[in-house]
């Protein structure tokens, strides 16, 4: 594998292959699909946070004219708890089968208890109301502290921690050195506790699917997800239909951020379609999305850091409690495994606790867990730096992980780009600029760093040359944010042709080899590898074909600028044979030209970022606004800089929302009180400034184009950067998110001291 140099397309801001459909409204998202004979499915959801289901009577609903099928948990394949975990990726089917439909207990308000299919959506909704569920309402716990009390209601009685029934459903730790000895060496030790609230991924497109099950069991699924193969596998597990009978077709996806890596509707719609004999369409309302799909965890973290007078961190201890929601699986690995990773710390203990409570099951959200951990760690680091009277970026530089550093979660780092991100942040025009006059508003600046593992994994591609000499690339990963553009750039570069001659298609499960989820910042890393290897095979074929025509050795043919050439005059004098000419001659010269590659890709390097944030605080209203932001990241190699910047900017915007406004608010009855975009306040255009990006490019040596994942790192440092900036403005630190206006006002009412600028 050679690193591509002298690039024509790699690194260019080409127009994405799917762009035209998206700007003209032609693109087909899941809810845009229809089918002859289609009917509508609706879900009946539990109104209670915690309740035993004594019985469900669906008879009245079934009799309603227009109703075609009703399903309950009885129709879904059960994975008994006692039989042990049945893993599919990181998901345990024992929890998934109970999450898609409550079995004996409803565990959160919004938990599905039955589903109906009817000729119209209105009839289906009406029928849901006719289903009689006999609930025994149980006490519930939503917040971590409540779930951990000794007399807390236990969600899963089978679960034991320290020998007792508990809501702690998992623990992990990373350890290095000896923290007790380490803290003894420290001149300064700071320990703080932080809390964050659950926040939703907030994709604009609600979950949707359309499913047809033929009488012979052949099932076709159109749905919006981060992985058609995940949809196929989970639907197969939960319905009992073999995977070979399910064709999962990826619709365009309107945002995911990790939230569309599991299924909610597909198994229900499949069962309804099977029972009714009609194609079933299901679309969630926004309220259903907010109540019953995965937000990420709320958390409580304690971080203790010790450093010597000369600015060396000698010990660190992080304890991260994360809410899992109704079923095990909060991202403790991201919180405990990423937050201390940018630093070379000799003595370290990082612990994560997975805590169940009566909220919807969490789903992945962009660098799952890492932003929560980084918020706590990066705030304490700033306090330590301040106590040592060091510039916060210098303090980070002094302790930065580099090639050879052993990370807390195990690996020894190869050549990484963390230091370069801190240096670039320090050298940025932003960091050097004065804060400026806030005209009565207080201004402050903060910085923070972050790390995300990045991932490789299974990926498949098929590259075919058309009869007219153009190229069709098929991969198996849904394109959420422009990955098709990156793939077109790479394939065109390797073949030496115009990128507009490369068409990139996302294959369905029955037409392309297995490809794992779009997640973990893995898609361009992995798909570039399989596309590169497929294209290299094609180039080999093209050279062989040219060699045959010229009657010379294939080794004497090189591929350049979209054509075969003799390597040197010694090889013979021949006019180049272009891709078009070779494609035209294909029938007579060995047949169709195409190649596919399937790999379990390895070698994804972790990603690092360092951010600089300026805030301005209106002391009368308590409103903190971000007025300038710079995100620096080691992106490996920017295959399409426009979409890399887009990832950085989008991640930062989400982080600003998380820091300042977003949170799930609950009623006294344990229900989400703000299940809509009006009250769950994501940043709008006028809330944000332009977001500057500095892309540091340290190519990944284990990747043909040097790619490192870029999608997740940008969310990791944001909440800490905003919190550090607010501290700089107010001289007061927030230990809880969000830093929303009422909380800022409350803080301002205490004694004030503005930090020196």
């Amino acid at each position, binding site marked *: 594998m050679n690193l591509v140099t002298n690039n024509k397309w790699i690194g260019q*801001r080409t*127009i*994405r292959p*799917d*762009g*035209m459909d*998206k*700007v*003209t*409204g*032609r*693109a*087909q*998202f899941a*809810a*845009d699909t229809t089918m002859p004979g289609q009917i509508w499915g609706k879900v009946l959801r539990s109104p209670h946070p915690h309740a035993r289901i004594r019985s469900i009577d669906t008879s009245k609903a079934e009799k309603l004219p227009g109703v075609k099928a009703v399903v309950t948990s009885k129709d879904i394949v059960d994975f008994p708890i006692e039989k042990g975990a049945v893993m599919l990726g990181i998901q345990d089917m024992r929890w998934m089968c109970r999450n898609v439909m409550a079995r004996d207990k409803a565990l959160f308000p919004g938990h599905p208890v039955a589903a109906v299919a009817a000729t119209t959506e209105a009839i289906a909704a009406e029928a849901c109301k006719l289903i009689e569920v006999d609930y025994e309402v149980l006490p519930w716990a939503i917040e971590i502290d409540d779930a951990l009390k000794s007399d807390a209601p236990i969600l899963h009685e089978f679960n034991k921690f320290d020998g007792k029934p508990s809501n702690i459903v998992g623990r992990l730790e990373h350890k290095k050195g000896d923290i007790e000895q380490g803290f003894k060496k420290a001149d300064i030790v700071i320990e703080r506790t932080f809390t964050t609230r659950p926040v939703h*991924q*907030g*994709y*604009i*497109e*609600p979950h949707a699917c359309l499913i047809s099950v033929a009488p012979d069991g052949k099932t076709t699924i159109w749905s919006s997800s981060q992985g058609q193969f995940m949809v196929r596998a989970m639907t197969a597990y939960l319905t009992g239909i073999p995977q070979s009978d399910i064709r999962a077709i990826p619709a*365009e*996806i*309107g*945002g*995911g*951020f990790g939230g569309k890596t599991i299924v909610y509707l597909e198994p229900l719609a499949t069962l309804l379609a099977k029972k009714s004999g009609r194609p079933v369409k299901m*679309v969630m*309302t*926004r309220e259903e999305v907010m109540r019953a799909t995965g937000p990420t965890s709320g958390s409580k973290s304690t971080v203790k850091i010790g450093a010597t007078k000369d600015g060396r961190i000698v010990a660190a201890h992080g304890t991260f409690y994360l809410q899992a929601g109704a079923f095990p699986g909060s991202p403790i690995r991201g919180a405990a495994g990423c937050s201390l990773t940018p630093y070379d710390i000799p003595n370290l203990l990082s612990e994560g606790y997975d805590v169940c409570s009566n909220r919807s099951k969490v789903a992945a959200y962009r660098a799952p867990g890492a932003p929560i951990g980084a918020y706590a760690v990066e705030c304490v680091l700033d306090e330590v730096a301040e106590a040592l009277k060091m510039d916060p970026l210098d303090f980070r530089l002094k302790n930065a992980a580099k090639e050879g550093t052993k990370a807390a979660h195990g690996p020894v780092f190869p050549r990484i780009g963390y230091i370069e991100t801190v240096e670039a942040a320090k050298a940025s025009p932003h960091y050097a600029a004065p804060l400026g006059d806030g005209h009565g508003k207080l201004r402050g600046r903060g910085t923070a760093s972050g790390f995300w593992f990045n991932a490789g994994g299974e990926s498949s591609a098929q590259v075919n040359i058309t009869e007219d000499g153009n190229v069709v690339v098929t991969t198996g990963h849904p394109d*959420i*944010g*422009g990955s098709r553009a990156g793939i077109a750039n790479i394939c065109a570069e390797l073949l030496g042709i115009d990128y507009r001659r490369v068409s990139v298609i996302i294959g369905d499960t029955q037409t392309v080899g297995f490809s794992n989820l779009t997640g973990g910042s893995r898609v361009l890393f992995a798909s570039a590898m399989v596309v590169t290897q497929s294209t290299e095979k094609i180039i080999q074929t093209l050279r062989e074909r040219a060699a045959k025509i010229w009657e010379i050795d294939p080794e004497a043919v090189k591929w350049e600028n979209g054509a075969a050439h003799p390597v040197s005059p010694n090889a013979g004098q021949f006019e180049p044979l272009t891709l078009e000419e070779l494609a035209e001659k294909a029938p007579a010269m060995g047949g169709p030209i195409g190649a596919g590659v399937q790999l379990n890709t390895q070698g994804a390097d972790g990603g690092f970022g360092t951010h600089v944030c300026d805030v301005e605080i209106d002391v009368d209203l308590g409103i903190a606004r971000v007025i300038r932001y710079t995100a620096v990241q080691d992106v490996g190699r920017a295959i*399409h800089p*426009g*979409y890399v*910047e*887009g*990832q*950085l*900017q*989008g*991640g*930062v*915007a*989400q982080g600003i929302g998380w820091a300042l406004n977003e949170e799930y608010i609950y009623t006294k009855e344990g229900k989400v009180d703000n299940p*809509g*975009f*009006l009250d769950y306040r*994501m940043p*709008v*255009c*006028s*809330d*944000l400034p*332009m*977001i500057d990006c500095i892309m540091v490019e340290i190519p990944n040596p284990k990747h043909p184009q040097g790619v490192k994942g870029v999608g997740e790192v940008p969310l990791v440092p944001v909440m800490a950067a905003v919190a550090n900036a607010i501290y700089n403005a107010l001289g007061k630190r927030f230990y809880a998110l969000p830093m929303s206006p009422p909380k800022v006002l409350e803080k301002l009412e205490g004694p004030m001291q503005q930090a020196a600028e």
Partner: protein
Amino acid sequence: MAKVHVTTSINGEPMEFLCEPSDTMLDALRGPLALTGSKEGCASGDCGACSITVDDRLVCSCLMLAVESEGHEIRTIEGLAQGEKLHPLQQKFLEMAALQCGICTSGMLVASDALLKKNPDPSEEEVRFWLAGNLCRCTGYDKIVRAVMETAAEMRAQ
């Protein structure tokens, strides 16, 4: 309940359709009219993904009843390009990567077009406040704002 017959004009074409009296314009567009370019992100007027114009006024089609379109001029994303020729905003969104997943894009384009019709020379702040009703969770808005500003500059130069 009997359906209502509505006569209207959509993207310059005379149109007739049947709908329930309670159907929203968005239901009608995405249902009987098969114009699925307008998206439903919230159905409560908070995301702007369903933006259309009614007699040149920017409207969330999820907040309007379908029957209210009777006799009015409706424009949707499907009417923004002139045949094969993209609207300059569409072209600029593509060139400047002002979309990632694309679910907000129709609404953003319709709203931006309405802005530029009203104000061909908006400041960044004006663009930001005008588009404040259109949520985008992917882009951080940076590239969208730049694309709108740049299109405005180019259209003024022509």
